């Protein structure tokens, strides 16, 4: 038994159990959360070279599961998010909270399916297996966002479908060209021929849709803004990140030698555009959840701003990039959960309706503010540590434009995130009504505190994320000797 298998098999088992138990299935989360957390911790403490093929079938036929640094930090981050979001959902989707029971029941199997798919995706090195994992996560994401707005979910579904097909097209080309779909084998044999470049281009295009990089982000704001809070939290924390992790694996591992500076620079430029566009849109939103959703568009931009930095000098930027991804996972999950609670108490969906909320629900608003600190990149927080590492790398490389984007993005985040907080703390006579469930704020607060605490463990995190990183194995990335 190895956590590499169990991290996928366990949530699948819980999915079946949730289906079998029907209405009572929601209590399973009380078992699933601690169990999955311990599996994720077990994964973190595995020996550095932890990897094995499923069923003992060797490559190129079989599927290799590998617990490298990226897998470890993302699985752990996803476990933290999902465990806490799941506990929150126990409250959100309880029969007492109202809402149609069909939807309440549909949540749990899809939740476990998403968890299993995300772990499967983080842990595998097989591109076709990644396709299946991607479909598990997208399908669950569509199902969960359909619990909110069907229109937004349908739009997301169609986007995601085309993204998957583009990715699959690339996988087909690679298999036909190399006779393998395993990243570790491709890393050894890949050449810059037409088929490989075409495959890389279409796969990247498809995955950019999945990770909602500007200008392919169109599906994200409506889907995230309309979904129930736990679903939005999962969508922002997990769904978007899986596409990003696959892109990391493609660009820095499988085709590291082909990652031409121009192409990487293009991704960086799109990332910078996403930061600016997302921030401006977030400033213009009147509704709270729409603001938080556009903030995701901006934050995803940072991940791609890091691409050229990693390609030029991996060691510093790599930890900044991964740390930023995980800090965003935690902070954004916290923020969506907190926003969901705040909107339940507020008289409307607009930011202006939050007046006086800090008085009514201080813990929830604190959670929101703490998450905002990490998203803005203020010290001491995971977001700060990540941005500091990226900024350091950018200045080191003389990439002043990216440095300016990093700083400016933080500033704009401060502007748009300060607005709801200021409103919540203002005014003594808001029309907000206190929630009857005081414990509901525990999950967002815990997530936000994790995002803050991540800032204190920057070095340990960087060491963890560097386990088995492609650049640490002597091979240079991006043609740099």
């Amino acid at each position: 038994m190895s956590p590499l298998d169990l991290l996928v098999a366990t949530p699948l088992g819980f999915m079946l159990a949730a289906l079998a138990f029907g209405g009572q299935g929601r209590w399973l989360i009380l078992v699933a959360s601690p169990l999955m957390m311990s599996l994720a911790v077990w994964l973190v403490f595995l020996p550095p070279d932890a990897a094995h093929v499923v069923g003992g079938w060797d490559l190129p036929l079989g599927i290799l599961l590998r617990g490298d640094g990226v897998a470890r930090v993302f699985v752990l981050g996803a476990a933290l998010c999902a465990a806490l979001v799941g506990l929150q959902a126990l409250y959100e989707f309880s029969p007492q909270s109202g809402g149609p029971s069909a939807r309440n029941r549909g949540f749990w199997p899809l939740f476990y399916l998403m968890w299993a798919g995300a772990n499967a995706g983080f842990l595998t090195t097989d591109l076709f297996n990644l396709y299946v994992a991607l479909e598990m996560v997208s399908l669950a994401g569509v199902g969960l966002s359909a619990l909110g707005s069907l229109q937004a979910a349908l739009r997301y579904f169609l986007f995601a479908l085309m993204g998957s097909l583009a990715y699959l097209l690339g996988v087909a080309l690679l298999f036909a060209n190399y006779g393998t779909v395993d990243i570790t084998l491709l890393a050894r044999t890949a050449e810059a021929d037409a088929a490989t470049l075409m495959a890389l281009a279409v796969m990247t295009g498809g995955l950019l849709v999945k990770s909602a990089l500007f200008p392919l982000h169109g599906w994200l704001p409506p889907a995230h803004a309309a979904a129930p809070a736990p679903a939005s939290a999962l969508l922002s924390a997990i769904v978007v990140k899986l596409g990003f992790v696959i892109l990391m694996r493609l660009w820095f591992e499988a085709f590291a030698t082909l990652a031409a500076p121009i192409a990487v620079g293009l991704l960086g430029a799109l990332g910078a555009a996403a930061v600016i566009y997302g921030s401006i849109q977030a400033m213009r939103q009147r509704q709270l959840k729409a603001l938080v959703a556009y903030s995701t568009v901006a934050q995803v931009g940072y991940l791609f701003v890091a691409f050229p930095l990693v390609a030029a000098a991996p060691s510093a930027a790599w930890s900044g990039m991964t740390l930023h991804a995980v800090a965003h996972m935690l902070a954004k999950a916290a923020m969506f959960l907190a926003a969901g609670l705040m909107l339940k108490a507020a008289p409307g969906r607009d930011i202006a309706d939050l007046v006086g909320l800090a008085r009514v629900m201080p813990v929830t608003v604190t959670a929101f503010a703490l998450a905002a600190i990490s998203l803005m990149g203020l010290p001491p927080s995971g977001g700060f540590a990540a941005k500091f590492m990226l900024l350091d790398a950018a200045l080191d490389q003389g990439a002043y434009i990216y440095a300016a984007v990093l700083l400016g993005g933080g500033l704009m985040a401060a502007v748009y995130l300060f607005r709801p907080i200021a409103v919540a703390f203002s005014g003594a006579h808001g029309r907000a009504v206190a929630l009857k469930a005081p414990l509901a704020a525990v999950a967002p607060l815990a997530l936000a505190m994790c995002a803050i605490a991540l800032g204190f463990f920057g070095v340990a995190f960087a060491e963890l994320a560097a386990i088995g990183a492609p650049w640490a194995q002597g091979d240079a990335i991006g043609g740099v000797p």
Partner: protein
Amino acid sequence: MSAAFDILLCLMILATAGIALFVRGAFAAIAFFIAFGNLLGLAWLALGAVNVALAEIAVGAGVTGVALILACSRLFELGDNLADVRTPLASRLGSAALCLGFTVMLAGVVLTIPPGDRLSKVVAPLLPGLGIENPVTGVLLAFRGYDTLLETFVLLGALVAAWSLTPDASRRLPPTTMVMTDPTSRIVAEAFTRLLAPAALIIAAYLVWVGSDLPGGAFQAGAVLAGALVVATLGGVVVLPRLDSLAARIALMVGPLTFLAIGLAGAALGGRFLAYPDGLEKTLIVTIEYALAISIAAGLALLAIGPPQPMPNNARADAR
């Protein structure tokens, strides 16, 4: 002769796809989509991929076609006439240029790759150890059993997602409200189903059984059974159970559960996850395939028929 056959077949595939994609009427589009699926099945036969041909004929043309036709009928009844909103000429021209460039590049790239069988030499020596002869079954159930396991959960997840769309009120309804209009044709349908059902059952069992050595297997068998279930449901002979009924839950879960349990048992007995103990390979593979066939049949049938539809004019029908 064979080359001429291939070319004619490909031209027909392209023509049917073109019509299915661009014809004005939605039902005509779906009719051509079904013909397209049939021709694709032939293409897989011509390629020598009989396993895929079976899956394509049963799943691609059969189940997908039914799901789309029923969706269109329901949309018509809801007043959506599937009208084609014309996108502006400029955007059409832009898309056309983009897609033309993409197609030319893709076709060019495809021509740089020499066709060839890449992995059957790797697969073949491993098959005797499994005790099976159909290499595709070997890949699906052993070498890449992990993919297959996850995929069965995708099917299950799609079903859950589709059903969680239904409001509580119509959740009590059985999953079909589609019947034949004409009582005479209904009698024909019933009689036909009584003939079809046992034949489908036998063929499905046969496909699983030969699947370890000849083309066939759980997916193909499941799809055949699903097709029979769909015909029976539409003919009013069978009423599919609701998703939350015990029968549906058992049928849907037996496959994934068996697969997962055998996979975990392999790990618990000291091997790897999804590794089969020596000597039991074929027994376990066939067991998994039968269980999977049941779940796939139930899953595909429920997906094709769709979740219960609260029809706005149900009330009028009751009043009649």
